């Protein structure tokens, strides 16, 4: 298996003027293609900071990040947009669907920015919504559906351009248990189909769906466990 994510000596310092927050400290991490990873840690331990850097929404203060063979630090804004569009699928805690825009349109969006022809786009969006079990909700607006359904639309949208990694920052944080299980089952299914999935969560039940758990504390990677290495996992 090849490495899809390679992180070396990664640091992120937020400079808010008065205080400097060292959100990530010398993080080293390698994730291989097809892995199913949970990132855990207390609030403020730097999980979201790492996810934003992995998703190319933010840049590290120092250290290197190679995604699917691309050294992200060296890319210009246009190429960063291209990487976000083609390599990364991002699922947020608060869904982040575009308001007043149908489920179908939301799923089409990454393909619009990827310049996928309209016909192909439509077919793929329908196929994805069917895959997440919302084939009958194509024309529904985000305010007309439940949180669990919103998150499944967001997952469909994240998959639109066949990304190399699927990043989910507390995807079940706003969902009740049945909806959380639904979303996690979806991730598991996608991972079985070969998608690399990284999920941030606070809950052990959610982390239990994955095959590898990485723990953060005060910006440092303190634990990295794979299924089978320990009795409880």
């Amino acid at each position, binding site marked *: 298996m090849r490495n899809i994510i390679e992180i070396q000596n990664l640091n992120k310092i937020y400079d808010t003027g008065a205080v400097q927050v060292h959100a990530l400290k010398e993080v080293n991490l390698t994730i291989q293609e097809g892995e199913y990873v949970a990132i855990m840690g207390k609030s403020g331990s730097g999980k979201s900071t790492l996810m934003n850097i992995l*998703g190319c929404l933010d840049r590290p203060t120092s250290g290197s990040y190679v995604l699917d063979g691309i050294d992200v630090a060296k890319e210009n804004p246009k190429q960063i*947009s291209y990487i976000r*569009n083609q390599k990364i699928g991002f699922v947020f805690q608060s869904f982040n669907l575009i308001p007043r825009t149908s489920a179908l349109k939301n799923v089409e969006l990454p393909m619009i920015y990827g310049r996928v022809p309209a016909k192909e786009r439509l077919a793929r969006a329908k196929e994805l919504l069917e895959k997440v079990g919302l084939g009958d909700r194509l024309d529904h607006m985000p305010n007309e559906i439940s949180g669990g359904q919103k998150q499944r639309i967001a997952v469909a949208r994240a998959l639109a351009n066949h990304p190399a990694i699927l990043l989910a920052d507390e995807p079940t944080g706003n969902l009740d248990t049945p909806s959380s299980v639904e979303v996690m089952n979806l991730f598991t299914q996608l991972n079985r189909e070969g998608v690399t999935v990284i999920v941030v969560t606070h809950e052990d039940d959610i982390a239990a769906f994955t095959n590898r758990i990485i723990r953060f504390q005060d910006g440092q990677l303190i634990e990295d466990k794979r299924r089978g290495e320990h009795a409880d996992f």
Partner: protein
Amino acid sequence: MLIFENIKLALSSIRVNKMRSFLTMLGMIIGISSVIAIVSLGDTMRSAIAKEYENVGSTLGYLYINSPDGYYTDDYLFTAEDKDMVKEAFGDRLTYLGFNSSSKATMKNGRVTKEGNLIGLAENPAEYKKLNILKGKLFSNLDVENARPFVILEEKDAMELFGSIDVVGRTIRTVIGTETKELTVTGVYRNQDSALMKLLSGSNNTRFTAYVPETLIFPKGSTAWSLYFCVKSSYNVEEVGNQVARYVAKIKNKEESQVMFYSAQKEMGTIDSMMGGLSAVVGAIAAISLVVGGIGIMNIMLVSVTERTREIGIRKALGARTQDILSQFLIESAIISAAGGAVGTALGIGVVAIGGMFVNMAVVVKPQVVIIAVVFSAVVGIFFGLYPAAKAAKADPIEALRYE
């Protein structure tokens, strides 16, 4: 650039915020419609005046002698003999030569009495005054020579005096100064002046304007201020006019600079450029309202960008490029202002058309005015949309996603 997708996006965003979009457009609508209305009004007046001069004739010129001390003795005025001398010398180049004399008079038929003006026409009257004769005909040169007591009445005056316009051959008792004459009606004409011209010339419905042979109201021994003439179309009015002016200076023993010559063409040019300048100035003032409209667009676009900060963040996270976001907002502001421009154009033309209906004038709306107005409004939209769009485009995705 995703132009097609962005146009669809812009349209749906305008649809979602109907009222706000309309209020934003209002600035452009008012600006564009007032520019078009004002400029077209000016063009309409100019064309009306141009038409009036066409009726008078572009071959027309007149001259008078300017007295340096403002005191006019007989040697500054023209007699019938002066006119004959000019006619002798320039008869081959002139089609008409007269004094443009007029006289107050009172007409009476039975119980009906009307006050008004008699205007004298010299030989070849058709060359000087293009009258729309409904009944009868103009005077012949013999009529003028022999000072025959003929008159051409306006349609409405004939109706008032006789109750009919079939009055050719009827006579009317007319008091001219102290004299009373029986004038025979030889023709009835229709006043073709536009409402505007009637307004400008101060003619009103209560007074009559009738035409008589000049000799009838200009007996031997009278003097006149000015000489009016029409130049044959194969000659240049300015050239011949200046020759006549020099000749007049010679026969009246005056300095050439004292003889003032004006041609209708030159006068019209002056009025035309005056009117043009006026509508340009007023149009420029109206154009300021376009800028105000543009600022309104910028204001709303800024609000819209702020409101949609989170949406912008999502789009960027999904891979939208800077230019994709830029064109999304630019296209939106351009569409708002171009739509405002189009509605404003329709409104402006409508206002001018309705105004034209009221004063009974054919209105002139130049296509280039419309094109300039609409293009200008789109440019205003893009210009004032640029700052908000750039603000949106360079938003940081993390910050934008965190925006509540």
